[in-house]
């Protein structure tokens, strides 16, 4: 079915967002992934979040590595530039792109093989540098495109479809991101759109390195009994710390949900995250607490989801480098080249 082109026309009465774009304006090509793939749900959530935020679609740069997850940028934001780069190297390409033009929104899409194995170093260093980006890992614990090998996020003791037990320890990218200083850290589940959409929206509004680990079952190779990344397993072991909404100064949606208290977090750009607490003790501003919370629940076999940590005062790489406000890619010889008079002086100093 996937070779059929998506028709361009749509119902004239389709709802429009603040900028006048419809949902369809945020879609891309038809997915070529397996029917029912968790990644497609994440794609849908990205589309939803961008629509909700009224982002100009073409002002987003979608950058990915290699793998099933990295193919997905072709399936959303069809009017944005996308870059399906090199396996494990999305973070460096995104960093460079971000340095060239600080005015675009950078969406990095990666997978567990891409970010926890071949690109573990690049993942770590882009987080360390505080690149202003939304870094989404579509985490299924398995190499899908090469048919079912374990990835580095597969839990120890989990079973592959072929019945092999994984004996290596798993890498928890959320724990690592917290340790490396990411200023927005969250985990969610591809099947939980109500949690995921606002998380993506909040991450996009966050200025700094935002990291979201999205557990996304691979229906072809990792959705069987014995897998710890299957739909059933994740649903049973999911422990959400909070639910959130993003308020961009319109339609307050943070009303009629119930449990616990509601906490408002104001971000750099004035947008607010409304956190509806499920766990009354959870404080998303406490990095150390988040790390402990995560470890404690992991030991109990629970997968913690929600917004685990946010620093609303975060700085990004451009601030660290003190770069000009004008995007570097627009500067020309008149501002970049010191000219012949300066060169004459340089020559004189070298004699």
């Amino acid at each position: 079915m996937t070779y059929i082109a998506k028709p361009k026309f749509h119902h004239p009465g389709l709802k429009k967002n603040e900028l006048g774009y419809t949902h369809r304006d945020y879609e891309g090509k038809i997915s070529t992934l397996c029917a029912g793939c968790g990644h497609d749900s994440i794609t849908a959530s990205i589309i939803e979040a961008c629509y909700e935020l009224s982002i100009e679609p073409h002002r987003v740069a979608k950058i990915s590595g290699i793998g099933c997850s990295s193919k997905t940028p072709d399936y959303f934001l069809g009017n944005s530039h996308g870059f399906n780069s090199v396996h494990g190297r999305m973070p460096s390409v995104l960093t460079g792109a971000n340095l060239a033009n600080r005015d675009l929104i950078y969406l990095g899409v990666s997978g567990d093989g891409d970010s926890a194995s071949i690109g573990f170093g690049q993942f770590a260093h882009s987080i360390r540098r505080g690149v202003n980006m939304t870094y989404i890992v579509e985490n299924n614990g398995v190499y899908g495109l090469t048919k079912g090998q374990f990835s580095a996020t597969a839990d120890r003791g989990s079973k592959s479809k072929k019945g092999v037990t994984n004996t290596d320890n798993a890498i928890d990218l959320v724990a690592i991101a917290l340790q490396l200083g990411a200023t927005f850290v969250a985990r969610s589940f591809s099947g939980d759109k109500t949690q995921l959409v606002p998380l993506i929206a909040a991450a996009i509004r966050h200025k700094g390195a935002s990291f979201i680990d999205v557990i996304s079952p691979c229906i072809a190779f990792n959705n069987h009994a014995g897998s710890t990344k299957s739909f059933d397993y994740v649903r049973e072991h999911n422990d959400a710390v909070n639910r959130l909404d993003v308020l961009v100064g319109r339609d307050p949606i943070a009303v009629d949900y119930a449990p616990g208290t509601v906490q408002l977090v104001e971000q750099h750009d004035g947008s607010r995250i409304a956190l509806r607490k499920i766990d009354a003790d959870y404080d998303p501003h406490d990095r150390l607490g988040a790390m402990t919370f995560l470890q404690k629940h992991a030991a109990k076999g629970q997968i913690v989801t929600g917004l685990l940590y946010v620093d609303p005062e975060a700085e990004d790489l451009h601030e660290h480098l003190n770069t000009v406000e004008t995007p570097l890619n627009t500067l020309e010889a008149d501002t970049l080249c010191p000219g012949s008079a300066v060169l004459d002086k340089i020559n004189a100093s070298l004699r």
Partner: protein
Amino acid sequence: MSDKKPISSVNDFVVRFANVNGSGSASANELFARAILRHGVPVSPRNIFPSNIQGLPTWYEVRVTEAGHLGARGGVDMMVAMNPQTWDKDVAGIEPGGYLFYDSTKPMPSTKFRDDITVIGVPLTAIANSTYTDPRQRQLFKNIIYLGALAALLDMDPKVIEQLIGEQYKGKEKLLSSNVHALHLGRDWALQNLKCPIGLRVKKSDKVGDRIFIEGNSAAALGAVYGGATVCAWYPITPSSSVAEAFTSHCKKYRHDPETGKAKYAIVQGEDELASIGIVIGASWNGARAFTATSGPGISLMTEFIGLSYFAEIPAVIMNIQRAGPSTGMPTRTQQCDIIACAYASHGDTKHVLLFPEDPAEAFEFAAAAFDLAERLQTTIFLMLDLDIGMNHRLCRPLKWDDARQYDRGKIMTAEMLEEGRDFGRYLDVDGDGIPYRTYPGTHPTKGSYFTRGTSRDRYARYSEEGPVYADNMQRLVRKFETAQDLVPRPLQANAERPTKYGVIYFGSTSPAMDEAIGLLEARGHQLDRLRIRAFPFHSSVASFLAEHDFVYVVEQNRDSQLRQLIVNENGIDPVRLVPIVHYDGSPITARFIAKAIGDHQDHLKVTPLRKAVS
């Protein structure tokens, strides 16, 4: 004690300083070289150093050359032997009739010297210890003391050195006067206790002209500033680190907004070479001029991305400051050994543009040009320097810039062009030169976006594994490479006085040694036409040069004569007619080496015709 007449030479000799790494000798030695320049006499200095920070032997060689021969000469006329570790080898390396300068504070057995050289002992440690109490000062000023003694021995004008010290320590009066004091301590001791001057002398001349004295890496970095580079990502590796460091310091001076103080550049020290080239490619994809500087091992790591740059057509500038390979090789020794690795870097069918500057002046020009070429051709451009050019001060013509020059940003389809309804196919060859248009991300709300990928795609950037579509794209890339031939710097030809069947091809840092070797060969009666290759792909004049000569020597600094391989491969010519002349021990190639290798081959060609030898 000498049974060989001491060498007598004015403004034409080689002094070599043997020091211990980390002893502070480098600045004193550089001061010596600069002082001779200020006498109006050209010098060509070279650092010979280990991959180490403190304790291992290091040498600094200064070729004093009124004739302006800037290549390494070979041989040492005066050894300033300050390192006991290398003493025996250093003493043995002095030319018969040469001079040995040493610290005579501790007596040395006579077996440690030679009869055919002049031995000059100065009690440097004793002088330093009696003047200074601080151990660090004793060490540092000992270097300036030997500089003072050498000034007396070589008949140098002390005022010239004083002036240089004055410029160096401007505003730091205490350091200035103590350095001048140390200089005179050494000079006075030598004048009082030794026969000054010796046979080697520096005499004021006017052969330097308006030339400047600069390291190739610094010049290349300046070229990047002038060429409009705004993003630099790099990973430290000898001998390239000083490119990024120089770029940083040039940018701090010339690239901050005077009002806001903000930086019109971004420099990131990557976690490795993969990240560095990834950042460059990301930035270039997004329309900034970006570069990285590295050396052989870094190139090996970058090759996957280089293939992406070639196939997805993303500009990138890589400065490769070559060092002796393979593997870690000799990290602090020079070679031209990455020609093949760069020309065909990455898996699959790839070809890349290489630029071969001969000195810092060309390193500046080619570095700036590399950014125009990268954006025009939408591919990786390699600036191929080596340690010899990169990390040594070289006398070269002043750097020049035309203020009317605008950057060539290549074929960019703008929002206006898209609005006009221009057909945008990211990989569509609209002009027949193989170069398609590109759009920057964020250009237009509904037009001009595309998906960049390393997988095969059609002219409109749509994924395709159709054979003809793939082949069509690969053929266009060949056309684009042909277009490059006429955009890159052309070879420079210099013909012998008389018509000759013999030619020589050379490139990069071999240049000064080759120019000097031509004179030596002419003296032996050998006439050679010269072609200096300055870029790959080769211009058609390379093929013409090959056609015009029976034998062409290809002089290069690697074992496998890589440029020769490239010429044979790209021109499809009989390899027998290309004679490899290779020098690859890690030291810079010399005129003596070239003249001997070519001269011997020429003699062989002329003296023993095959028929006579057989009969």
